[in-house]
């Protein structure tokens, strides 16, 4: 029971902060905290098989899939603050609070009776006991899940598959497109300027500087700009000025 009282506040805290953090990646990590704590609670409650399944399926497979899709979709895809339905957020929180209080109080009032415990049911091990009823009483449901899993796999492949409209672009096509862009809108023909121009901070998050000292647009990856982790080039330029001053002093 000590384990429960340690884990329960952590889980509730992590779940609540899941609602408030702005970045979806942080939400996913907080969900991982909740899920691992739940796995421990399963282990406390004589369910070692579900403890393992929770760790492998939920924190291993499902959360990994979430993070994978988050990276594909773009980490910058954060929530919009604009409400489409006026007052929806306040109303949702109020209804949620009422629902939570009613559910919690109602459930706390109910007497579960004396806890029997799984000592007799788990006789001879939890996994053999589960296997015994899974492959006798629930064998039809178990076989049906295989159909469900195959359907899900095919569904995911169909949804994620993209038909190619039109032929694949070859290098010659790309070069011709580049020339056309130059003729139409005067877009620069050559490659984009490389980032990172300072010897002491030579990194892709530093924009290249143009001759007039301003940052060159296009020298920074779009993703970094969207995340807002671009280093400020003029800030580094003051460091450079200090370095050159030192050199002059030495001379």
């Amino acid at each position: 029971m000590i384990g429960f009282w340690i884990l329960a506040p952590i889980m509730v805290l992590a779940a609540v902060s899941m609602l408030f953090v702005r970045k979806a990646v942080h939400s996913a990590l907080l969900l991982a905290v909740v899920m691992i704590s739940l796995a421990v609670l399963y282990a406390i409650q004589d369910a070692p098989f579900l403890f393992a399944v929770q760790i492998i399926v939920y924190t291993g497979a499902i959360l990994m899939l979430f993070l994978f899709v988050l990276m594909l979709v773009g980490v910058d895809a954060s929530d919009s603050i604009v409400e489409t339905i006026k007052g929806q957020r306040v109303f949702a929180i109020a209804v949620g609070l009422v629902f939570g209080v009613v559910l919690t109080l109602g459930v706390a009032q109910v007497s579960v009776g004396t806890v029997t415990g799984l000592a007799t049911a788990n006789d001879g091990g939890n996994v053999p006991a589960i296997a015994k009823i899974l492959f006798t009483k629930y064998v039809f449901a178990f076989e049906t899940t295989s159909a469900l899993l195959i359907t899900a796999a095919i569904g995911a492949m169909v949804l994620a598959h993209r038909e190619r409209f039109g032929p694949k672009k070859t290098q010659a096509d790309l070069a011709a497109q580049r020339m056309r862009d130059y003729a139409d809108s005067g877009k620069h023909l050559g490659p984009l300027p490389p980032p990172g121009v300072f010897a002491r901070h030579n990194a892709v998050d530093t924009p290249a500087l143009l001759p007039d000292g301003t940052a060159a647009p296009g020298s920074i990856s779009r993703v970094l700009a969207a995340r807002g982790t671009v280093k400020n080039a003029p800030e580094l330029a003051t460091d450079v000025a200090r370095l050159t001053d030192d050199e002059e002093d030495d001379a």
Partner: protein
Amino acid sequence: MDATPFIVLSAILFTIGAVGVLVRRNAIVVFMCIELMLNASNLALITFSRANGNLDGQIAAFFVMVVAAAEVVVGLAIIMTIFRTRRSASVDDASLLKY
């Protein structure tokens, strides 16, 4: 070991998940909140399994996990398809059926 605290914790987690589905706008976070609700119900199932001295609850929780895995695969594929066509993962942007 009393069963009520576990049930209450499960109720609280379920409520948090439900509020999250209503409040958040990012489709992926909404999805994570659904997972939280499924997990909360799993905790209740396992607690009742222990309270009744019967493994049927654990089997039910196991099936919930299987269905959740299938649901996540299809759901995330749908979110990716929507993102590919609209360049956005916000649930407010997918409102074409309204018009």
